[in-house]
């Protein structure tokens, strides 16, 4: 619980932050700190410098954009939950309103959670289901990363060295689309042992499209493509959902721990996929 000594800086602009990051290869960005600071206290991480992004105005705020929404990377969970521009993204609000506790929701940021790529974080499942785009800036300029390409592995994302997430774009939801996120929380940490976000588009009594994101179960968040295919074209009834999720966990890379071993967790993927889809459709 006693970190190594480190420097601390609060750049006012993105350019300043990038320069600091480029100047010190052992520096780390601070975007809330709920994951980073505990690892530093345990000395699992010992950055020389923390570059706190919280004073950079261009990273904050949520705006409506082209029918969708743009979420500044330093938007806190509490700000996202309260944002009018995000009201339609029910799955996102499901997640941001239950992450951690009040303190966490007031300090933790959406960009921070995405960059950390924790396999048990809530937002990765939601962003996968919503088909988000992650906007980043680095020394080579800006680029947009499709969410399907973003989560690479355990605590690993498509972010390159020196890149900073600036915002996350959520596309407009197609007509007839409703979303939900449900999680099976670890009784100790509150992190997802299994978390599933579903975005389901109903059209003419059928599921015309859907995206299902899974977090918590494996080394990184992933879409449940088999479930998506089985559900698409069905009538969205409980029976069809049950059938679509029956083998949802098959073939997935699943992690186990003392709270939920591999077999149990795999079984819970089906249960929570069903609950997420049912919850989404119930909102239609």
């Amino acid at each position, binding site marked *: 619980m006693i970190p190594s000594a480190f420097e601390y800086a609060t750049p006012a602009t993105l350019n300043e932050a990038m320069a600091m990051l480029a100047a010190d290869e052992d520096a780390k960005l601070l975007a809330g700190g709920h994951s980073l600071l505990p690892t530093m206290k345990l000395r699992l991480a010992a950055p020389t410098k923390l570059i706190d992004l919280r004073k950079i105005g261009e990273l904050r705020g949520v705006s409506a954009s082209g029918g969708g929404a743009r979420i500044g990377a330093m938007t806190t969970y509490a700000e996202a939950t309260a944002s009018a521009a995000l009201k339609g993204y029910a799955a996102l609000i499901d997640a941001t309103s239950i992450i951690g506790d009040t303190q966490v929701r007031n300090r933790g940021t959406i960009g921070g959670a995405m960059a950390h790529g924790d396999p048990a974080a809530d937002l990765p499942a939601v962003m996968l289901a919503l088909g988000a785009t992650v906007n980043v800036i680095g020394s080579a300029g800006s680029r947009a990363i499709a969410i399907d390409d973003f989560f690479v592995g355990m605590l690993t994302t498509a972010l390159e060295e020196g890149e900073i997430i600036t915002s996350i774009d959520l596309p407009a939801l197609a007509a007839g689309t409703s979303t939900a996120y449900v999680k099976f929380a670890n009784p100790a940490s509150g992190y997802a042992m299994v978390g599933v976000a579903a975005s389901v588009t109903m059209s003419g009594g059928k599921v015309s499209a859907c995206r299902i994101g899974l977090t918590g179960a494996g080394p990184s968040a992933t879409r449940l493509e088999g479930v998506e295919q089985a559900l698409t074209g069905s009538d969205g009834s409980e029976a069809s959902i049950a059938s679509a999720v029956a083998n949802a966990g098959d073939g997935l890379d699943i992690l186990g721990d003392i709270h939920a071993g591999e077999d*149990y967790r795999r079984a819970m993927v089906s249960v929570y996929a069903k609950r997420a889809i049912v919850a989404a459709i119930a909102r239609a």
Partner: protein
Amino acid sequence: MTTETMFGRALKRREDPRLITGRGQYVDDIQIPGVQRIFFLRSPYAHAMITSIDTSAAEAHPGVMKVYTGKDLPAVPVPCGVNLPDSNQKTPPYFMIATDRVRHTGEIVAAVVASDIGTARDAAEKIVVEYDPLPVVVDAEKSVMDGAPQLYDGIDNNITFDWKLGGGDIDAAFAGAEVVIKQRLVNQRLIPNAMEPRAVAGRYDSATGDLTLWDTDQNPHIIRLLICMLTGIAENKLRVIAPDVGGGFGSKIFLYAEQLLVTTITKDLATPVKWVETRSENFQATTHGRDHVSYVEMAFMKSGKLCGLKVKTYANMGAFMTAFAPLVPTFLYGTLLSGVYDLPALRVETIGVLTNTMAVDAYRGAGRPEASYLLERVMDIAADELNIDPAEIRRMNFIKGEFPHMAVTGMNYDSGDYEGNLDKALAQFGYADWRAKQAEAKAKGRYLGIGLSCYIEACGIAPSKMVGMMGGGVGLWESGTIRVHPTGKVTAYTGAHSHGQGHETTFAQLISDTLGVPYDNVEIVHGDTNQVQFGMGTYGSRSLAVGGTALLKSAQKLVEKGKKIAAHLLEANAADIEYKDGSFSVKGSPDRSKAFGEVVLMAYLAHNYPADLEPGFEEQTFFDPTNFTFPEGTYMAIVEVDPETGTVTPLNFYCMDDCGNVLNPLIAEGQVHGGVAQGIGQALYENAVYDENGQLISGSMMDYAVPKITQLPSYTTEFAPVPSPSNPMGVKGIGEAGTIGSTAAIANAVMDALSSMNIRHIDLPLTSQNVWNAIQAAK
């Protein structure tokens, strides 16, 4: 001057404004100029030989004052306070710092003293320790097997004691029985997790030889006594202060290596030093609780009548034994295995086993939750097997009739009304209604469960003579001094120690009543060996029954003294003086009276005073109880099980406690709430898990599930007092009841919910995964 009766009033705690606005003074809040900080380097191995330690780089680190290893310190082991009679107890030595061998992860290997804690930790990383790992055993049943790794030479099969208790003719009881229920039960290891981790600060004055220790503990006088015995420091030169203490739950009773190290180091360096445990250290190196595996055989007639009980328990004691450790799974456990039942015969054997894990000692309830869980869980298994309602099988077997009742365990139950308590609980908590709701829910595919637990515990710990017979190295009386100042204001000194119990409020209430002074005029002092005469501290729900009685008796002595003074002033006989509402008056002549303040002032002036009476107005009592007290009660849990996930949701929790007379119902209710939370924590969430290498897997709040408010139900708490004859207030104790009674109620509710699935028993904790696995296995 009239004072309202304070006994029975739900006063808010006077401690709270201070504590909840951040004005508490915990050890880490104590500011000592020039203080150096200590960081302990701890073993990452559960069992290894230390082949070398090189501290030279750490000692050269800027800001480091000194680095200690085991060879720098006297090889005086910290004593275990109990030597169980007739148990062949072999107590392993517990040294301040490991020298040649470590036996659990977290054992101290070196101590770094530096200008600040960051520097101390930086330097500790420069200490090079070479270990030669040894085979590890963490499981008690495996540890006693031939061929298991051995922790100590001379402690064969890692068995530190083998304790037996019996009563009645057990063989005849089983021979005459029609049904024998056999069950293996696990009572998992728990981690106490007081909100304030351990902390010790020491300051030695080389000019006077005075040493002050600020220590977060439950019994500063015992800590002082032990330190003095081990270090040779004179008892009148060591002051131990346990200031505000943020919870203990038993884990802060014991003298640990760390307190001795801080004492030794501050004296050696003649510099103030402080150590504050990190939460990670608290998980690893503060005593754990429970950890039993028991083999139970319970014999019945088909009618449900109880014939006898045989229990064999493997108690995992960890790698060494702290102060009370051997007492917990023996005299605080086996003696409660008769419960509230008329048990004709009992045989219990507890095998204390050493393993490569942290030491196990008292944790809220200490032995009694293990006994209560075992008995109440098996009663429900029997009810299920014999097809008798759980309430009825209990009723059929209750102890009825006259008290005191000598149980087959040798415990002399002081008072109780077990059937009356159950009846009240069933009626007030709507047992029949819940059964109807359960059936309705079942029809809709929902699995509700109703669980009962009728507990008993032994509190008011304890008659000193009995403690001696159990092999304990202390007496467990308590002291209380009341000093009435010349102005009539009162300061009372208690040897009990408050670390959440609210003594500053409750003790002031009882003194106010007896002394006839306003509650606000009474201050309570505790936790400082230089202020309080002596005391045994707080644990075993003893504060009010023992410590409170000492204060009560002192107050009564003061009233008697006041009568003598008043009699002198009123020219009457002391026998004719009565004291009421703060006024001493002659019986039958209320106008001939002297106010409390006048009498007290005269005690100090002594100008017009009885010739044979000492001046001053101060009395002291050392009270040694003649018996334990035996709180009892009925708990009823309502849970719902999600059959798809195995998740148990506790919906309601009902408590009908007989803790004797209730001094402050608000505080008593708070004790029940907290205790039940910890009992539900054991039932559903908490589990201290070591892997086979002796690494603590559940070593943080990320992995060890202390229940959060969202994981707990609402409580309904009622009191059904049957006054105890063991003390003049008729109180029994309520600090541990919630923990003792609640775990079985939840477990029984879960099995009740699953009764249609042919599931007989699931071991603790009833996590989603464990319940789901049982459901799958039963399919």
